[in-house]
């Protein structure tokens, strides 16, 4: 995919534990205006909209209905993806690639503070065989972490390097919710949520919204920002029942990455990608996702990270924004990865900017324990 569709504007809220003063629509209005301003255009330049929301999170069937006015969708062609923000962005991209539209606004919102996260995630489990066991996102991920660590001999200390790095990176990101100076020891000593996962292995819950604007080549050339081209994208889903999967495996991520790299003409991601933003709701996930993305071999994520490869000054900085561990606004989180990767390519990432970024990777997960993945490659 060469210079067909570009990201021309992005907007984010500050991510916070409880945005009591803002409705879903207020958050969406804020980021829509920020993205328009970033692109130097008005709502009249937007010819279609894709919203991203989850009916369980919002406690509302047709959760997108609450934000139709706030995203400027009045009288427009608008649709709603229910899943990670990376998938909503993909639908927005497709609509431009089809030639039917010139400029798509993609906007995602989520307020984790408004619903009961345990019950919401519990509702993603099979109602007959799994739900009554009380499984939700943390306990299911604990099963995955245990299986991964056991299979490959990855240690808790190696996993703890991820929150230490990401919370430190977050200090340079004004939108992040949790910027901290931590040590591995502090992570290891934090209270156990569901073994082997501890409090500081896990992402916080956040309220927030994010918007990204896609434009075709003709439109992109007329915007004020430097266009960031979509070079490749791929998504893929694994089996549903946790018991049907090898939870230490990353088959669907490998599939998604293969597709994205194929479109982008990437042969060796280690040579061709300069910065990475992954959706790591827990420390161990960053290790696993780096394996699936081909930055290291299966089971080597711990060693790879311990070698300093993913630090801000390492060869492949991962999550310079602080990642999902520093702000987790649910299904907005994947769209944030795209926005952050875009800023890195533009050189507009401020204090969290990585030097000399030409190609950036953004990643999102969908469902429990990384059942689904979506991978984006962006370039200048």
């Amino acid at each position, binding site marked *: 995919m060469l210079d067909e569709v570009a990201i021309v504007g992005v907007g984010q809220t500050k991510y916070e534990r409880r945005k009591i003063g803002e409705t879903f629509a207020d958050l969406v209005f804020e980021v829509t205006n920020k993205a328009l301003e970033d692109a130097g255009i008005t709502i009249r330049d937007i010819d279609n909209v894709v919203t991203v929301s989850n009916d369980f999170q919002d406690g509302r*069937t047709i959760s997108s209905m609450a934000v139709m006015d706030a995203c400027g969708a009045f009288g427009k062609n*608008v649709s709603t993806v229910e899943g990670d923000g990376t998938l909503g962005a993909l639908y927005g991209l497709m609509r431009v*690639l089809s030639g039917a539209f010139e400029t798509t606004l993609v906007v995602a919102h989520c307020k984790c503070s408004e619903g009961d996260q345990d019950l919401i995630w519990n509702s993603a489990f099979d109602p007959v065989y799994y739900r009554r066991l009380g499984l939700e996102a943390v306990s299911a991920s604990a099963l995955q972490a245990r299986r991964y660590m056991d299979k490959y001999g990855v240690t808790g200390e190696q996993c703890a390097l991820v929150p230490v790095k990401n919370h430190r990176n977050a200090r340079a990101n004004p939108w992040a919710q949790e910027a901290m100076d931590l040590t591995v020891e502090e992570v290891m000593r934090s209270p156990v949520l569901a073994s082997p996962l501890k409090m500081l292995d896990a992402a916080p819950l956040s309220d927030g919204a994010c918007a990204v604007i896609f434009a075709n080549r003709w439109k992109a050339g007329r915007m004020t920002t430097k266009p960031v081209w979509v070079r490749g994208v791929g998504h893929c889903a694994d089996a549903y029942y946790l018991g049907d999967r090898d939870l230490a495996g990353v088959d669907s991520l490998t599939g998604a990455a293969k597709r994205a790299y194929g479109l982008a003409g990437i042969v060796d991601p280690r040579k061709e990608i300069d910065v990475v933003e992954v959706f790591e709701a827990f420390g161990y996930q960053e290790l696993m996702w780096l394996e699936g993305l081909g930055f290291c071999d299966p089971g080597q994520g711990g060693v790879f990270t311990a070698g300093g490869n993913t630090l801000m000054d390492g060869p492949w900085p991962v999550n310079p924004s602080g990642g999902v561990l520093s702000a987790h606004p649910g299904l907005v989180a994947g769209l944030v990865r795209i926005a952050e990767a875009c800023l890195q390519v533009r050189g507009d990432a401020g204090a969290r900017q990585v030097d000399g970024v030409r190609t950036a990777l953004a990643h999102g997960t969908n469902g429990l324990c990384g059942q689904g993945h979506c991978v984006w490659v962006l370039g200048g």
Partner: protein
Amino acid sequence: MAQRVAVVGFGQTHHKSNRGDVTGIELINEAVRRALEDAELGPGDIDAVVIGNMDHFENINLADMWGVEGTGGYLKPVMKLTTGGTTGTTVAIAGYYHVASSLFDVVLAVGWEKNSESDTTGGTITAFDPVWERFSFPGALPGLALDAVVYMQKYGVTEKDGARVAVRDRANAARNPYAHLRDPITVDDVLRSPMLSYPIKLLDICPRSDGAAALILAGEEKARKICRQPAWIWSVSVCHNYTYTSDVNFGYLDTLEQACRETYKKAGIKDPGKEIDVIEMYQPCSFAGLSWLEAMGFCGPGEAPGLLWDGATDAGGDLPVNPSGGVLNANPIGATGTIRVGEVARQIQGRAGACQVPEVKTGLATGFGGCYWSDVLLLGNRPR
């Protein structure tokens, strides 16, 4: 590079009030298998899957992930969309853009619902604002009733006119083995059925059904290889406007008018009445089958009852509407719009069996939902 898109396969379940014999995943799988058989394809031929339903109707969060075994989406790209009543057309349209973008060549689009697994009215209420609307809002019926009343008063339309729509659709459903309700009814039956919300009586309104529907969409080159007569998608449009139900302009579905106008323009249709051969509309109640036909540009304001009583919209008429029996006779909500698109495709392919109407070159499918939003798809027998 963009490419043309066609429907090359369609499958649906036998819609019923309660499919207690299958789980939701199995219900989805029934439709998917039938679509694959219809297109003579195997699961390995599918490049990507699009799926949609309404979460709170079955109380399953992330149904795209849950339904992977049913759709055959294992280790494939899967995406979920949900937009309320328009979900069924939304997945068809998303399937269209998947292929039109050239990112994928063969895409499966699935709409489904097991309405028997929850209280449908209770579920519908959760579509409205939890603070401002939900405590007083009583579901889909009163809005549709209001829409009908405003239209009836304006043009002197009667309850008998509405009944005639229901009779037509039921007569068509009697020929459709997949329809949920198939026993013929008369105008008197409709008029004598229990009043639910004036002027809507039991036989004027859609049922709640369990069912699933799957479309297979393919790019130009693949479509020609897969089937002899693909049903080409000429243009699609979507129009949303308001956020609160009390803001809606009842009595005239302006979103449908706008979406149709855009669709016709994109496809170069100047006189829809002459150029479109069959319509499958998302018609949740009989009266919508009149005023919405006007919004679609098939006749002038207040003229729809004339067309109806002349028999023009009957299966043998000049402008057949809902030859499948339509939404009044099968309404698995997330699948309802998908079925409209599939039925139009079947008509264009000349494979609609006993429901086939003569000489279909073009057909229109519509979706309706949310805050009186509209989706429109125009299909034809050759690429355009």
